[in-house]
């Protein structure tokens, strides 16, 4: 297996921590993401990631904990989206755009202030694109705790959420408080995106939120299978992504490794392509059969 696992891969503490945290984030993102994809809220999910960046960058300016900044930013963003009015579908697109635009403006300011105040370089890329290998131990603990909380919240909300996503009117008729479920779900989504933003970078957290669930939903099985499959595909993407990124250090004489985020996205895209091809092939077989 040496062609795949370069020497020293698993004995490296940073890699082990990175894969561990990454898998937790991938599983949580995938579970929440199934609902996001069903509700066609990819844009909101992505916008919250960018708002979280603004929070993370803001925390960097005042010297607060980045995780607190990311999560607080995402929660504030979710609040702003609700305030402008995401409940009306026609306005949702514009409201998300306005909040996202303002947040990126703030990120620009905060990142600029960080580069003024510190001699270290690379903070912009670290905040935007993230790095699994520089996650601190405190962050690891917080990610685990928040991950479990999100999982519990999702288990509690799951049924009414899916019902409301598939058919809001029927859900309302059956006594589901659709509006309240939506707000609670927005909170869950915000915390999840804040988490994944700090691990694979706010900009690319969208990949783990949308990619694996979209692939799992294309397989079209029972709902519980979809959730498990999405979590598995997400974990696989993170693990393989880290391995490829680690190996790529040895591919070029210049020893410039490919960023982890790129490798994770690459695996996610391959998964989507594979599932799509698989479905076509199965469809053809059924049509002929």
């Amino acid at each position: 297996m040496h062609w795949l696992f370069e020497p020293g891969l698993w004995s490296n503490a940073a890699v082990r921590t990175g894969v561990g945290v990454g898998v937790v984030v991938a599983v949580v993102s995938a579970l929440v993401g199934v609902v996001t994809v069903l509700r066609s809220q990819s844009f909101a999910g992505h916008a919250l990631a960018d708002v979280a960046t603004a929070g993370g960058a803001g925390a960097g300016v005042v010297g607060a904990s980045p995780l607190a900044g990311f999560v607080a930013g995402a929660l504030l963003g979710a609040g702003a989206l609700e305030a402008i009015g995401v409940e009306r579908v026609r306005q949702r697109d514009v409201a998300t755009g306005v909040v996202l635009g303002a947040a990126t403006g703030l990120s620009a300011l905060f990142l600029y202030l960080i580069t003024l105040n510190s001699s270290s370089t690379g903070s912009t890329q670290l905040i935007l694109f993230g790095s699994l290998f520089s996650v601190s131990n405190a962050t690891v603990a917080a990610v685990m705790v928040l991950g479990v909380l999100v999982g519990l919240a999702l288990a509690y909300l799951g049924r009414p959420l899916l019902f409301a996503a598939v058919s809001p009117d029927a859900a309302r008729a059956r006594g589901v408080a659709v509006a309240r479920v939506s707000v609670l779900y927005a909170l869950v989504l915000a915390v999840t995106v804040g988490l994944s933003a700090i691990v694979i970078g706010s900009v690319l957290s969208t990949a783990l939120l949308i990619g694996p669930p979209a692939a799992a939903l294309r397989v079209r099985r029972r709902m519980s299978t979809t959730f498990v499959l999405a979590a598995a595909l997400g974990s696989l993407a993170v693990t393989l992504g880290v391995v490829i990124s680690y190996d790529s250090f040895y591919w070029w004489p210049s020893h410039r490794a490919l960023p982890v985020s790129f490798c994770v996205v690459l695996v996610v895209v391959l998964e989507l392509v594979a599932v799509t091809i698989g479905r076509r092939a199965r469809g053809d077989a059924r049509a002929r059969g």
Partner: protein
Amino acid sequence: MFSSFMTNAWIVGTVVALLAGATGFFVVLRGSSFAAHAVPNGAFAGAAGATLVGIAPLWGMVSFAVAAALGIGASRRHRSDVVTAMALVVMLALGAAFLSLSAAYEPQVDALLFGEILGISSTSMAPVFAVSIVCALALAVMYRPLVYDATAADLARSRGVNPTLLEMGFLVTMALGAALTVPVVGALLSFSLTVGPPAAARLVTRRPASALGLSMVLSVLTLWTSIAASYQTNLPVGFFVGVLSALVYVVLRVGTRGRARGA
């Protein structure tokens, strides 16, 4: 503030703002903000890729932004928000990979993401004008079908408008515009200018022609104020563009609320 080295910034800024205001009107009308956010990131990846192989950034930006637009447009039948999200993520990941392979300096990366309006040289102005004129002509030709398609899709179809082709044409125009806007206000902020002022304009008037005009005016005013504020305070222009664009929308939203209730 109006010294000779700033002249180019004012001229190019104005052209870019007019174009963003016009494109943005259709973006808001059609509800394609997500695509408008994703496509400029293609330009970001393209610029990074062009730096890596050593060609002019403009060509990299145009080709990658158009590729992103075609990718989004081609798969309109599927869940389009998922496809847009994936296109966005792929472009950003490619950009990150190109940057780390070429080991670009951080200020260059920041300039691509958040804009560097003062860095516009006179040589880079000719392509800006050329592409702007092409985009303006394309939007003028597509004006009627785009408005029809957004307001009365059935009517548009009965008049022989091909929605897929129209969407493609619009996205490609948007991509060309994005390739211009990215170096000026950055990949992340060209989007703010494309959504804030047009959305604000739509709050004031529902008539397409006047909303389009107002959108362009608001967009130019936003960018002018941002350039002036950035010049005076030394803070990044992207900050002012992003926050002012949103502010225009929120102020008009609050201002027109009473009128909307009365109506």
